[in-house]
């Protein structure tokens, strides 16, 4: 059943050119230089400190590293991170 749904979604994305983040509930990450990272469609904070932000996503985690991090704005499923960003990594679904 789930597989069937997934296939329909993939087909819709391909043939109707729908944005994949909406259809597959994937996070959308907008990076502005090394200054800002704007993440939508995340599933909550896992780790947050001065130099690391790890967010839960649909599958796995998004890990952002850098220094002097401030969460400029935090809304349900939306985060704006400010600081000096050095790397953004996708981690597989493992226990922290």
């Amino acid at each position, binding site marked *: 059943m789930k597989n069937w749904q997934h296939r329909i979604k993939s087909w819709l994305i391909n043939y109707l050119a729908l944005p994949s983040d909406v259809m597959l509930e994937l996070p959308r990450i907008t990076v502005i230089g090394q200054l800002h990272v704007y993440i939508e469609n995340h599933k*909550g*904070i896992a*780790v*947050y*400190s*001065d130099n690391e932000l790890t967010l839960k996503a649909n599958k796995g985690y998004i890990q952002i590293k850098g220094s002097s*991090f*401030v*969460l*400029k*704005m*935090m*809304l*349900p499923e939306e985060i*704006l991170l400010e600081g000096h960003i050095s790397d953004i990594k996708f981690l597989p679904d493992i226990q922290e």
Partner: protein
Amino acid sequence: MKRIQGSYLRGYVKVLVKGERPERFFQACTNRGIAVWDIKKETNNTCSGNVALGDVKYLKQIKRETNDYKLRFIGRKGYPFLINQFFQKKPLLLGLCLSLLLIVFLSNIVWEVKITGVPNDLEEKITNQLEQYGVHRGSWSFTIDSPSVIQQRLLNDVPELLWVGVHKKGTTYMLEGVEKVVVEEEEVDGPRNLVATKKGVIQEMYVSKGVPKVQVNDYVEPGDVLVSGEIPSGQASEGEEENDDEKDEEEVELIAAEGDITAKTWYETNVEVPLSTNNETLTGNKEKKYAIRIGNIEFPIWGFKSPEYDQIHREKYEQPIHFLTWELPIKFVTTTLSEKEYHEVERTKEEAIDYGIKQAKQELQLHLGPKAEIISEKVLHETTENGKVKLTLYITVEEDIVKEEPINQGD
């Protein structure tokens, strides 16, 4: 971003969360739909963030639901707090109120009375008169009558004034007067005739200069020459007759005709008199009440009891209170309660006719001036309908009908 914009206006607080994984607390907040911003990890187990003032009440709920976090409010920002702070400074507030009151007080005082356009002696007279009305430097402007009333009273009390304009400009009363210059009545110099202004029958004639053209009991129309100023020269100066013998007979001398001529004139007027009337008269008993009105609400200051009159005639006089040049919505209201009585008068037809005749005569006399004399009146027609008597009157008057008209000396 929209939810954070304008947060300074509505106020926000900075919360310091202490506990294991403090960012989880903020996560819980956002899950509840509360916007949090500027989140900073201070140390390993403390985290600070801003929350809108309106959302603070939910924080405690969230705190109860999550594991024990310790919340501390470490900053208050925004206008609500600034205003609160301001209102907590009692002396400042008191000072502000007092200064506002002072300005209101000073705005309602007459600071200057300016009189222009009249000579000094008259100015002094006006100043004295104004002093009696209570208009002088330093008087309360709401105890003073309105400019139009002052104007009227000044004109009555200072006979030398032809006209006076009174207007209030902020705290200054500006008076502009015109002095009455008593001019000798200007005689029409030069030759003139006397002509009739109305149609009528001449009753009396007294001609002191000129040639009368009409006689007693003659009927005249408006514009008819009554006394001519053209005198045949021979007649004018009999002494010179011999010397001017050679002169053309048609040559005339032009003089200013003078004389009094009274004629009988007639007027037809219509009057309507109701058979029953109501009228009110004031008995003279009155009381005054004072109040301050803000918007539509009146706060009495003096005179709380209502007088025990059966019928009351109320007269309200409102005097606005000023703040600098603006009129405040606060007014000083003086109410005069006068006792009044109703009189209901029923008239018979005869009485109504009498009354109508009297009224018509009065009106006509007022119209014609005091010199005219009403001789007789006659009811031409009378009807009664809808409780009213309609009269058509024919009134005979004796009056002066003379008008001076210069003789045109075109050539």
